[in-house]
């Protein structure tokens, strides 16, 4: 039985068919007239061979509409992702939504509300909590704590991913920085899993060589890829939602052609969601309504193309604290993405744009994910659930339903029971320490860490993952990407992590 939340009603559609057609035509015209800059000679040649017009000097590739439409049709509507635990395998696409635990560079200190680089133990613990939470379907190990104490920046993706593979048996997301995907693929193959890699893209209308190389390497390893479009309205994209949709659709089409002419049928998803730029500070606003509207509309368009969707709305709030703003911005955004047919939702634990990640927030957000998942499932309308006979049988007061067999059968199927949201009676709340959701979540994190044991890697798998890591460490050191001083800090930090692991075990 596949995990995930399956929507039982038609998705929210904010665009009329005519409006969708205007956006589609606009994007085709942009790709044919202006095209994209693609900084990868072999990719340009491949696109020229497929029928694009290529200007060698400006690295500009212009795409004919027939080729775009042909390639859009070739993109698979679904793809499978293998997890370490087969019960956690995913089938992305259709009407099913999966939640991924969120991203955030630094650890949030709940005493001061300030952030700082995370230790290896904190990263490991975050992965264990993510592994235990019922509504985290993909573990996004690499994008939490990208600021790890003592870890050289070039090694962060790989060290984080290795922790993800060790301490979670769920599907892993990966990235690409300075060719690190080569080692990420080695690790995944050693553990017998697929990665779901997010590929770097530069809006507007630009793909750099690093992104193409990573896309090719992951596709060669038969893994799906997910280009991340980075349109900020008014900066890297038009200030209007409609214009940002045209741009994002054009970029989607560009990626469809690039991938489908490289490997027809290669599975891709598109990570999108245009936020408005705050014109006073120059910072993206992720919690505003614009990103929700843009996400819902783009989801509708991607569904028309049958391209699986990673939607952005709700992935983070702009609040620096775990507070009302964080709660409403994340929840409303994620709900809009879910209702409009998003397939993958970056969600639990990240906030303050991309700055912080908190295991406590992850536990709280997991309640929201369960809530949204329950909403997507709607209500079953059958003869039995309609309960006409039961209503007739119980009749008016003093009749009631508490003792009825129908209630015993259905009461715990119709609502979602949250783990840490406060639903205590007031009188009980007064006597149990007046706990709010955050204090309950803090207790829950401690409880999970004391009791949850992730599925262990076999010795061979462990060896394969460690071998790939060691190879990467040597490679980047010999390339000069890690200085001698950094190397010594790095080795010390790994020793501390190992000591902590042994002490905890």
């Amino acid at each position: 039985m596949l995990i995930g939340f399956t929507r039982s009603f038609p998705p929210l559609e904010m665009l009329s068919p005519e409006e969708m057609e205007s956006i589609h035509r606009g994007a085709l015209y942009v790709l044919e007239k202006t095209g994209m800059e693609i900084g990868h000679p072999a990719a340009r040649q491949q696109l020229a061979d497929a029928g694009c017009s290529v200007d060698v000097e400006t690295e500009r590739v212009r795409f004919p509409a027939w080729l775009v439409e042909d390639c859009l049709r070739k993109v698979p509507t679904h793809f499978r992702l293998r997890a370490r635990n087969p019960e956690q395998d995913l089938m992305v696409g259709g009407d099913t939504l999966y939640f991924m635990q969120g991203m955030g560079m630094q650890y949030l200190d709940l005493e001061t509300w300030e952030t700082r680089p995370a230790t290896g133990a904190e990263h490991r613990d975050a992965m264990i909590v993510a592994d235990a939470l019922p509504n985290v379907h993909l573990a996004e190990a690499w994008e939490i704590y990208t600021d790890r104490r003592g870890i050289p920046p070039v090694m962060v993706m790989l060290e984080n991913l290795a922790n993800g593979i060790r301490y979670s048996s769920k599907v892993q997301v990966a990235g690409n920085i300075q060719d690190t995907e080569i080692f990420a693929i080695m690790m995944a193959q050693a553990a017998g899993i697929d990665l779901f890699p997010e590929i770097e893209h530069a809006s507007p209308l630009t793909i750099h060589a690093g992104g193409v190389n990573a896309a090719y390497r992951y596709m060669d390893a038969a893994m799906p890829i997910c280009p991340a479009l980075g349109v900020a309205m008014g900066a890297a994209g038009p200030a209007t939602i409609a214009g940002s949709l045209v741009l994002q659709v054009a970029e989607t089409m560009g990626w469809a052609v690039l991938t489908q002419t490289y490997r027809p049928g290669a599975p891709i998803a598109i990570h999108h969601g245009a936020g408005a730029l705050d014109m006073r500070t120059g910072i993206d606003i992720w919690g505003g309504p614009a990103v929700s509207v843009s996400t819902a509309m783009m989801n509708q368009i991607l569904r028309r193309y049958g391209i699986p969707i990673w939607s952005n709305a709700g992935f983070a709030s702009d609040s620096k604290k775990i507070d009302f703003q964080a709660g409403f911005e994340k929840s409303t955004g994620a709900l809009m993405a879910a209702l409009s047919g998003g397939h993958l939702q970056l969600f639990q634990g990240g906030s303050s744009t991309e700055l912080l990640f908190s295991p406590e927030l992850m536990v709280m957000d997991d309640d929201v994910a369960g809530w949204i998942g329950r909403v997507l499932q709607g209500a079953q309308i059958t003869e039995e659930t309609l309960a006409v006979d039961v209503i007739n049988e119980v009749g008016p007061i003093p009749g009631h339903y508490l003792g009825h067999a129908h209630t015993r059968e259905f009461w715990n199927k119709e609502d979602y029971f949250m783990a840490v949201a406060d639903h205590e009676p007031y009188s009980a709340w007064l006597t149990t320490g007046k706990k709010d959701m955050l204090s309950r979540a803090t207790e829950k994190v401690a409880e999970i860490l004391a009791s949850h044991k992730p599925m262990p890697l076999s010795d061979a798998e462990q060896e394969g993952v460690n071998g790939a890591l060691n190879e990467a460490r040597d490679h980047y050191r010999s390339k000069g990407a890690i200085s001698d001083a950094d190397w010594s800090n790095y080795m010390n930090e790994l020793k501390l992590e190992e000591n902590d692991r042994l002490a905890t075990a």
Partner: protein
Amino acid sequence: MSERTLTDLAKAVQEYDGDQAALLAQQALDEGTEPVAILDALTACIREVGDAFGAGDLFLPELVGAADAMESAMPIVVAALKAEGTTRTSAGKVVAGTVAGDIHNIGKSIFCTLLTADGFEVIDLGIDVGVDKFIATVKEEEPDVVAMSALLTITAQEQQNVIAALESAGMRDDLKVIVGGGAISQRFAESIGADGYSPTAPGGVTLVREMLG
């Protein structure tokens, strides 16, 4: 010399009309206005726009529009200054770029625009700028400040590589190095030997102003 032309030039900049600004700069020169006077007029005008942005009366689209219009007129004025053997005076010269491996443009562009609006001469090297490019530009332009941006933690290390290269080339002591971007902190800036750090573009301008005093 026509005061009227300079007034019209300022108006063109404030109406974001680069073509008109370039025409009026040329017209002012043709009328015999000193290049320095034209430069002063442009600087005063953009500073006014910058102040209005600082006060919250104008927003980034207006600020960037006005700075772009000013930039359209600048080559004409700079060429005239050069022809008469005068060098451009400014509050200071800044070389800025997003480091290698990082393709984020917006924060750095805003920083450059704000600096221009504050009267600085800015050389924007763009994105994904390698160590060699930074070094070559510093050699050629002799700036007062090198400003590097990195949005990704993973590329922040490149800032350190540039500082190390400036040191090896013997150029580190002659200039200030500042770093910025979402991925880094004061702590990181200190650890790589930068002279200053700002997480935001407006903060970066304040930093440059304070440094060059």
